[in-house]
């Protein structure tokens, strides 16, 4: 026999006839702070990462308009250290480094995100399909991703990019995506294999849900965390690959990006000439962008598990209160006497408890 609790509750709220209503209405409900829609943003690491990433995205969008000089324009100020005219100095041809940096941001961001989205998409399609269908399809898709896993990526990218007639930004992005999806596919396949056998998927199948719906509505939401962190990881990889390619002089064309700056700085012996302003800003930008993406990844990690979310969100308070949440050793905090918020009610309660003692620690 099952009792529909909602019915009983409704009955009690609406009709006083059945339930023993005593005129005692439920006490004033304490207003609980709703977790809100942007819980993710309460994680300080994620916020820091998003702020830095947002800054670079903004520069990428408005870069060509706010750059003080044409990045390729040569001038007579050759190899000048930072000054009011050139905030980050000039190159051996008198080009403005700051302008190169600002204009070059777009190339880095576009390639990073296009490659990230493309590689994640291929990875999800191949990985989830392989994990879900099993059998021959799984075998062949796994074989494919295994092959891509063992191919040394950078040499392959160099060869492909070297063969293409116009190795512009998007071409490089596609090449990076095509060579970089396999790891994500492998992880997703493993997780899908485990999810496929769980009871809630069996239940969905027993309810007559279509395979398409099971994959989209039951399995994919469980993979969100892996997909998101895989995406962030791929973006990092793509940015670094692009910069590496540009640094060794492949695929730059006429576009500026941070790697091109480093390429010229290296080939013109900036280090030996002591022109630190030529390579340090670009290096810092790469490090900052990488850090931002890593911070976002940390944020995702702490956020994904609903059970650990409370811990992740309150890490600072927990540290302050000296609480270390662990499984198997529940933390104990002894309330300081008087510091407790419950006031009179709880005082009455604790004194009326049978073993109330003065020496409560």
């Amino acid at each position, binding site marked *: 026999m099952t009792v529909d609790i909602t019915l009983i509750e409704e009955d*009690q709220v609406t009709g006083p006839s059945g339930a023993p209503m005593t005129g005692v209405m439920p006490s004033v409900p304490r207003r609980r702070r709703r977790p809100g829609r942007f819980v993710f943003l309460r994680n300080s690491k994620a916020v820091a990462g998003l702020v830095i990433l947002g800054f670079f995205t903004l520069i990428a969008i408005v870069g060509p308009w706010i750059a003080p000089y044409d990045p390729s324009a040569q001038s007579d100020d050759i190899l000048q250290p930072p000054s009011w005219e050139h905030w980050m100095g000039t190159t051996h041809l008198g080009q403005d480094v700051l302008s190169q940096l600002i204009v070059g941001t777009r190339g880095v961001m576009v390639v990073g995100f296009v490659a990230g989205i493309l590689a994640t998409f291929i990875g999800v399609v191949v990985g989830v399909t392989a994990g879900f269908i099993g059998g021959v399809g799984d075998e062949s898709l796994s074989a494919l991703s295994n092959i891509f896993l063992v191919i040394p990526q950078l040499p392959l990218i160099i060869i492909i990019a070297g063969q293409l007639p116009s190795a512009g930004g998007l071409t490089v992005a596609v090449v990076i995506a095509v060579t970089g999806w396999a790891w994500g596919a492998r992880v997703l396949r493993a997780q899908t294999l485990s999810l496929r056998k769980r009871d809630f998927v069996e239940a969905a199948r027993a309810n007559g849900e279509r395979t398409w719906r099971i994959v989209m509505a039951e399995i994919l939401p469980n993979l969100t965390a892996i997909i998101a962190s895989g995406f962030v990881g791929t973006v990092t990889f793509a940015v670094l690959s692009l910069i590496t390619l540009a640094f060794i002089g492949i695929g730059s064309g006429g576009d500026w990006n941070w790697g091109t700056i480093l390429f010229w700085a290296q080939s013109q012996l900036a280090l030996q000439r002591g022109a630190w302003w030529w390579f340090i800003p670009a290096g810092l930008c790469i490090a900052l962008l990488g850090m931002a993406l890593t911070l976002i990844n940390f944020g995702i990690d702490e956020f994904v598990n609903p059970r650990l979310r*409370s811990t992740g969100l309150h890490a600072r308070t927990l540290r302050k209160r000296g609480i270390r949440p662990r499984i198997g050793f529940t933390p104990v905090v002894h309330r300081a006497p008087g510091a407790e918020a419950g006031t009179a009610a709880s005082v009455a309660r604790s*004194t009326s408890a049978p073993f109330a003692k003065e020496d409560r620690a």
Partner: protein
Amino acid sequence: MTLTTPAGHGSALVPVKDPVLEIRNLSVDYGYDADPVHVLRDVSLTLGRGEVLGLAGESGCGKSTLAYAATRLLPPPGLITGGEVLFTDRDGTTTDILRLNDTQLRASRWQDLAIVFQGAMNSLNPVFRIGRQIADGIRAHRPEVSQQEALERSAELLELVGISPDRLRSYPHQLSGGMRQRVMIAMALALDPQVLIMDEPTTALDVVMQRQIVEQIADLRDRLGFSVVFITHDVSLLIEIADRIAIMYAGEIVEDAPALDIYHRPRHPYSSALLHSFPPLRGPRRELSGIPGSPPDLARLGAGCPFRDRCAFAFDACATVDPGLTIPDVAGDDPRRAVACLRHDAAAVRAAGFEPQPVPVELSLR
């Protein structure tokens, strides 16, 4: 300000003789934020040596939380915010489990205080033979014992719970659910613990197997002399096995009395309602009433008695005064029992400026 001294009775409740586990004013929160849910509020409970104590109540009223908090097994975001859990060893030394460090806690677990979990039959590792799993536990706590001796002890333990010793070399999937449950009980008894906490150990089993296991526990208790905390929502099962029953509601103990007293003479409206929710095994037929409504949301609990909205005997004081555990206001009652109901606590009602109400007939059966 003491609200506990009811006019007609002695000042304190009579403590349990020779306690092995004393839980004092234990408070537990869920959530680490500024606004946690107080799931246990100043719960006190004493387990006597060799006693079987039943913990009963609806789902979500804090039974398992109490047991896991007392053993510090609550997973995050559980947080113990106060109280003591005193364990008294056979030689009379007393330790507060909440103050042990990790090493001490690890050593004390299983040795002093063993637990059989909810759905225990899935607690066995499917890839090891059960004999090895029992022996592993023994050798973890007693490194000086050889594997051979540990296996012999495992065989003894299996015999103790009614499984033939040649099952030592079986894998978990080769045993039935009831047998696996009994293996878990054998495992819990391996180090001769003084307290055995059983969290709904029979929930997934059929009634015949439930009966066998309950009888087995009672029999083992008589032979080995350990104490049992038996958690279940099956009150009829408790009345058979338990010496004493504590009824929990909304994170508090509302009544604590010998099993037969609870059965024949419930003093709290909730205990009474709980007993009227299942058919009696013997005796005349009576109408089943059930309990209207559902337990309150612990996150939004105000002052006053948490049961008042579902209680047929609630009166004006119930909305503001928190009932504490007192001796029931019924002449001739066992002084060892306690109830948290304002109908029995005229002094507290009067102190808060309300007119006390008499104990209704239903709650003062003889």
